[in-house]
């Protein structure tokens, strides 16, 4: 049975799963839900995911939601220890950057993104937008220092799931005006652009 993905492709969390599938060479079918498409509060969707958020996958009967849990599941179930190591310590070192992306880093750009890119009328306060831009840029500076230390990617010299989570956020950050110059992040972005999955779902996948 093939892999089915529920969620519209404009969602940054859906794009984590799509990029991960590209890295794994996994074929899939996708249904548009959320955003401008069908509402995730429809019973058919809530039957799949009671918390009503995209993405959701159905992998031959295994129904998983939450983007980071999904991509960890996909990499592990396909034996891709290069993307997520099996040993507890190196695995945790990948996962902690994913958790940080899903909580602090994600929250930092939310107001600026809604106000400046999505033109959301609820997020027009210029001071709140400036604070959001500043917090986000300080977090990107932490990533810049980590890339310098780690050597090329978030967790070392090779690409992992942490780069899928962080990479899409960096792509979003690059849609903001007046960003500080961060040379390691710029080189990292160029490196990500060498990957077909990132070109499709990051670079050319919308902000």
């Amino acid at each position, binding site marked *: 049975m093939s892999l089915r993905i529920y969620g519209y492709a404009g969602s940054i969390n859906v794009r984590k799963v799509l990029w991960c599938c590209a890295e794994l060479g996994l074929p899939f079918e996708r249904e548009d839900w959320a955003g401008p498409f069908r509402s995730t509060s429809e019973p058919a969707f809530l039957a799949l995911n*009671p*918390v009503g*958020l995209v993405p959701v996958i159905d*992998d031959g009967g*295994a129904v*998983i*939601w*939450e*983007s*980071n*849990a*999904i991509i*960890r*599941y996909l990499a*592990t*179930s396909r034996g891709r220890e290069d993307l997520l190591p099996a040993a*507890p*310590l190196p*695995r*945790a*070192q990948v*996962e*902690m*950057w*994913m*958790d*940080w992306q*899903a*909580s*602090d880093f*994600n*929250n930092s750009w939310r107001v600026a993104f809604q106000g400046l890119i999505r033109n959301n009328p609820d997020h027009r306060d210029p001071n709140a937008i400036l604070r959001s831009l500043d917090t986000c840029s300080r*977090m990107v500076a*932490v990533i810049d*220092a*980590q890339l310098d230390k780690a050597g090329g990617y978030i967790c070392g010299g090779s690409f992992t799931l942490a780069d899928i989570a962080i990479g899409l956020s960096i792509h979003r950050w690059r849609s903001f005006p007046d960003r500080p110059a961060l040379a390691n992040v710029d080189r990292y972005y160029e490196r990500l652009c060498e990957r077909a999955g990132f070109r499709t779902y990051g670079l050319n996948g919308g902000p």
Partner: protein
Amino acid sequence: MLKIWGRLSSINVQKVVWAAGEVGQAFERIDVGGPFGGLDTPEFRAMNPNGQIPVLEEGDFRLWESNSIVRYLAARHGTASIWEADVARRAEAERWMDWMLSELQPALAPVLWGVVRKVPGYTEPKVIAEGMKRAETLMAILEAQLADRPFLAGERFGVADIAVGCGAHRWFNMPVERAERPAVRRWYEALFARPAAEAALPLPIA
């Protein structure tokens, strides 16, 4: 011996202290963060560049982010207790941890700041009411999930119960008017009866 950096009033430190107890690991806990400070020193930033608690020190390496630490402790020390070896079953638990991180914690935090910690900007009734509304929506989801299973991911206690259980501890011990949630209440009381949980979840909450 493990070292856990962070004050015990932090919900994220509570998760790690609880998990260490469940996997039978002795630890030393060092109070930093909140009123204790100490997160902006170069030494602490070298452990966690984001300057946040908890940090787990084991031998010569350090981990941060509470959910990742909980999963690490389960994988490294809990194969006979809380670790789930099957990858699909593990994902069933992990999705609830991620939901805790991205949905439930951000909903509970402003209520705690408003009614317990009295943080300026969060104490106005309107702000508290908005936070409560969001939190109740999420508690209704938990109620439905726990209605027909003893633990979040099914029949076995595990890492998801630790992460989300720390949120339930806050929820049931904040001085607020709550909707009745019998399944969540039963689950929380079963969790709190575990010795490792009681040691990790001080009362009153602060």
